[in-house]
């Protein structure tokens, strides 16, 4: 469903991604693993359209979206939960979700998507029931873990077919990580594909169907997560 081919991305003058290629299939959890500064966020931002590509191509559901604006990609079914969660601090959780729900209904995707914005929101609540109890809280007053939940719930409210999660487990206690991993599996069972950026290989190998290892803007490994754990070169690159 997502084909990223030979992309080169710059941040200012710095050449960050060097001919990076990856793909995500229907109903698949793919992890992009690499240490800090490897280029994971840059990859996700490029896919979402927040950074322009210097060259290369991105195809989503058979459509070339390389030049498409980010908000159009969101409407085509890409949900994004960024590293900093991107919750609007002055809006309540309800309002954060309300915008997405409304946009999902207004974008005309509803006819194609199996779920409307409000159904999608119900599905998000079924993954994270906690979010329902937070609806009147302002974004500003959420804890780190709550922000992560709301960010994923909000991305799901847009009825995505692909979820991009950047460091979704960052800063969570180990028990909570397990809780989130269960949530990701549940989301996948709803038929949503997931591309996650993750710096912890152990976490990634717990959920990934397939795994890419990235180092200095290049894919250095691609395949089964268990293979990655055995591959010394990959382990060395991930440790730094």
């Amino acid at each position, binding site marked *: 469903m997502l084909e990223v081919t030979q992309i080169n991305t710059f941040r200012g003058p710095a050449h960050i991604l060097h001919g990076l290629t990856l793909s995500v299939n229907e109903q698949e959890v793919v992890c992009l693993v690499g240490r800090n500064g490897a280029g994971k966020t840059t990859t996700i931002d490029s896919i*979402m359209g*927040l950074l322009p590509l210097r060259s290369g191509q991105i195809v989503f559901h058979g459509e070339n979206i390389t030049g498409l*604006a*980010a*908000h159009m*990609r*969101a*409407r085509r079914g890409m949900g*994004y939960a*960024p590293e900093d969660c*991107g919750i*609007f*601090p*002055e*809006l309540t959780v309800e*309002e954060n979700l*309300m*915008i*997405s*729900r*409304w*946009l*999902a209904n207004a*974008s005309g995707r509803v006819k194609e998507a199996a779920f409307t914005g409000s159904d999608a929101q119900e599905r998000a609540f079924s993954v994270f029931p906690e979010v329902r109890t937070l609806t009147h809280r302002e974004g500003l007053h959420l804890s780190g873990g709550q922000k992560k939940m709301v960010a994923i719930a*909000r*991305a799901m409210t*847009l009825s995505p077919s692909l979820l991009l999660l950047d460091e979704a487990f960052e800063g969570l206690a180990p028990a909570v990580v397990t809780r989130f991993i269960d949530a990701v599996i549940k989301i996948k069972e709803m038929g949503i594909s997931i591309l996650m950026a993750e710096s912890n290989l152990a976490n990634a190998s717990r959920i990934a169907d397939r795994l890419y290892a990235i180092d200095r803007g290049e894919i250095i490994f691609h395949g089964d997560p268990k293979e990655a754990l055995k591959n010394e070169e990959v382990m060395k690159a991930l440790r730094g």
Partner: protein
Amino acid sequence: MHDARVVAARILVLVPAGAWVLLAPAALSPYLLIIWCYALIFSIACLGLNLVFGTTGLLSLGHAAYFGAGAYAGAFLYRFADIHSFEVYFLVGILTSTLLAAGIGFLCVRATKIHFAILTLAFGQIFHSLFIDGAIFRLFGPLGWALYLVGEGSMYIPRLTILGIEFEPEEFIPAFYYVIVFAFCASVFLLWRINHSPFGKALRAIRDNQTRAVYIGIPVRQYRWYAFTISGVFLGLAGALYGQLDRQITPEQLDWLFSAELVLATVLGGTRDFIGPVLGAFVFIGLDEIAGRWAIGHNIMMGLLLMLVVFVFPRGLAGTLDLVPGIRKVGLLMKRKWL
């Protein structure tokens, strides 16, 4: 169903307010009634500006243009089409300023922050100069040019008929007052609805973080443009009312100083609270009136107000009042979902 406190708070606030609004023509001297009318009109303009300014986070220094356009359009209509109906004058004024805002807004929303402010200022000043040097009047042929030479860019608007009724001069303002009140209530209602709609929340999201807004699917530039255009509707509405109230429209209403006054009054009231611009507008007009009586220069008052805002009320009057527990309580009860 609401609990009793909500009902009590609403009765406590709305009944005296409603009684005052209805009785103002009887209670106020003719002169004070005009000031009161002007404050209501100025409130509508500030509320309209705040949709772009406080809600979307774009500082416009050119909103005087849409206010002025709302009044001038009707003045030209009266001169050249010989139309005496306030309703037609009013609708043409709103339509003109809406189109103007849509056109200028389309270009301005391509920029953000200081560049946006500069662009709005530039367009506002261009529009202003078209009236100052008479270019607009030339479009209307020799009669237009003669009008310009006689009035130096200002135009006269007679007492128009309201709902087909021709009022006697001394009856006119008390009658027109109710038109203003109706327009004020309608504007507050519509802007409240817009502010609390998902579209309004999306504008706030754009203000808080543009990138975040983009990846949840908000077409940022398009929504900014919508906000700008809607804002123009209310500025035009206010301008048209002003033209009929004052019955004289001058290029002064198009000048950037007037744009700055709109911004100052809005900041004084508080940009983050819905009702802030209304508070600011009333206090601004009140102080302006007092300053006039004590022969304090208008500019000195503006300077003092600016200092007051920066040092004493950085959150605006509404934000400061919100810190008073009793008022805060009533405010919260008022804000509860209606019906």
